[in-house]
């Protein structure tokens, strides 16, 4: 062989070898794990299939949260896109009623007497919609008030607690308007009659996020996810970032109960938005919490974690590889300007929003790279009659759609009992999974071009 060619081949080999050794977060591919064949697969027998009715007035875009009443007659569903709380006949899928979270909720905020959070050390008051023209709030700016029903939980057979994300305009004594986001718990019946409207107090270090939340009928308390922007962005502390707090049944804050796990904080991943919201599940008196890409389940009662088992990939290397770019971003975020308000009354120059934007665009940690780093995510946890069923989303380029789902059933102590893989059909996708405790059914909500189907399945 020609000497020159030999040298070129040698250099090329060296380059390829060095690339292979130098795995960065950008070219990382997760290693496949050996699966334990002794874990029994559990078949899910189809018992019944119901079509969820849609009308011109009520089109179901997606399901954010669902619950069934005790007598299993009513299915309640929240649709974030539509901003509705929908009630269906659980037996036949017919629409019973729906409530749209509209401008009327702004009046409810004011009627509740709650004072808005005083941003930038200024004293604010909420504005009545009828007064908007006097404060230069145009119809276009009124359009910004997109109130949303986020979660719904039955308290008894006909009453629900609904968590709502609310927008309103507030102003100072010298007419500086500011767009406000707050949260409330709404007690209502299935006819849409509001029985109680309870705003949740928020501050810069404790902002309730509406979902997930759970009403504990034993203790008459509510546990809800919280954000703590103050600690991570302003104070620049990465430990003890609050994730859940407990409120009493009239929405008074009681205490903070859960914090971001170390897997996140050690990797400078202090923003849950990037990893999917945390999940919550109650089994008898025990409260279980999970955080998307962290493949552990935290038992709030005994403060112990258990590791999920028998998964096709792990996320551990992803946490290690993302640390450096995240650290760099975190350090750069200190250089952004102090909060200011723009003409429309938005605090868009805040450190918080700049920090979030920089994560995605400037540093190019795109969704694709992120998915490679964390191929397994906890989508939800369900109390399946005393066992904990974890719904996982797995990104795997070797399967037809490039992803699939796993349902794993654990004891409350963390022993894996069974697991089942679920695959989306080309024309029909799984959008939500829930449980009917009366009949012991796994409920799978499927969306296709034709509409929504609810499959009632039973584990054999």
């Amino acid at each position: 062989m020609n000497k020159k060619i030999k040298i070129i081949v040698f250099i090329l080999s060296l380059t390829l070898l060095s690339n292979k050794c130098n795995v960065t977060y950008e070219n990382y591919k997760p290693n496949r794990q050996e699966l334990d064949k002794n874990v029994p697969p559990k078949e899910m027998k189809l018992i019944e299939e119901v079509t969820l009715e849609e009308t011109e007035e009520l089109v179901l875009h997606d399901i954010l949260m669902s619950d069934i009443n005790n007598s299993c007659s009513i299915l309640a569903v929240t649709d974030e896109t539509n901003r509705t709380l929908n009630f269906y006949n659980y037996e036949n899928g017919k629409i019973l009623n729906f409530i749209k979270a509209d401008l009327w909720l702004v009046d409810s905020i004011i009627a509740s007497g709650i004072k808005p959070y005083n941003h930038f050390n200024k004293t604010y008051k909420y504005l009545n919609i009828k007064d908007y023209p006097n404060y230069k709030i145009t119809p276009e700016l009124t359009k910004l008030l997109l109130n949303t029903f986020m979660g719904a939980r039955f308290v008894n057979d006909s009453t629900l607690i609904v968590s709502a994300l609310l927008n309103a305009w507030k102003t100072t004594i010298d007419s500086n308007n500011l767009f406000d986001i707050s949260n409330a718990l709404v007690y209502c019946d299935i006819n849409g009659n509001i029985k109680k409207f309870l705003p949740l107090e928020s501050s810069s270090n404790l902002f309730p996020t509406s979902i997930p939340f759970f009403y504990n009928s034993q203790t008459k308390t509510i546990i809800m996810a919280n954000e703590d922007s103050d600690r991570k962005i302003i104070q620049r502390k990465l430990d003890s970032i609050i994730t859940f707090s407990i409120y009493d049944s009239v929405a008074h804050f009681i205490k903070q109960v859960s914090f971001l796990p170390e897997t996140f904080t050690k990797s400078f991943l202090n923003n849950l938005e990037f990893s999917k919201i945390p999940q919550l599940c109650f089994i008898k008196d025990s409260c279980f919490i999970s955080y998307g890409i962290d493949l552990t389940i935290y038992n709030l009662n005994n403060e112990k974690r258990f590791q999920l088992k028998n998964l096709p990939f792990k996320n551990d290397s992803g946490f290690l590889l993302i640390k450096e770019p995240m650290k760099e971003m975190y350090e750069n975020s200190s250089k952004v300007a102090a909060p200011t308000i723009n003409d429309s009354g938005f605090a868009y120059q805040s450190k918080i929003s700049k920090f979030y934007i920089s994560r995605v665009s400037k540093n190019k940690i795109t969704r694709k790279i992120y998915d490679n780093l964390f191929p397994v995510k906890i989508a939800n946890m369900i109390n399946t009659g005393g066992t904990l069923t974890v719904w996982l989303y797995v990104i795997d380029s070797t399967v037809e759609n490039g992803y699939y789902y796993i349902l794993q059933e654990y004891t409350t102590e963390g022993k894996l009992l069974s697991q089942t893989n679920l695959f989306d059909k080309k024309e029909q996708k799984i959008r939500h999974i829930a449980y009917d405790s009366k009949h012991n059914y796994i409920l799978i909500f499927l969306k296709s071009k034709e509409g929504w189907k609810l499959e009632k399945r039973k584990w054999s």
Partner: protein
Amino acid sequence: MKIKTFFLVYTIIVCNLLSMDNSLFDKLKSRTELNQDELLFVTYLNPMTCAKCYIGVEELIAFIEKNKGSKKVKYLALVKVDREIELKAFKRDSGWEYYLFADDGDFYKKLDAKESTVLSVLNSFGKNIFNLNSSKSGVNLKLLKQFLDKK
């Protein structure tokens, strides 16, 4: 030399043809009944998008209407929905007055736009003339004005 020029022209033509998903553009053209002398302004909307982004698009359209001169333009929103029924609901709830098309994939890629693109300007052959980036509103208006002022 002639062969080199031929290959260069051929490569440019092939690249141009490959860069645009013509089947998608044909559907958009048919939906908007786009004529040869018309421009298509395509925006990318999500029913979940914050209302501020939607208002931003309305402001851009108002600016184009004010400055378009003799240019013939049509507006179309690619809306991130799975079904036509959802598109109808979006039209009703948003009050969007122009053409709509359901985007059940990442259609922006097929129109040579980016994830951050707020508005793409296409000619009647489906060629992407330029994209406006959502995060640069000042630059957006300047670019638009320059384009609309061109004869």
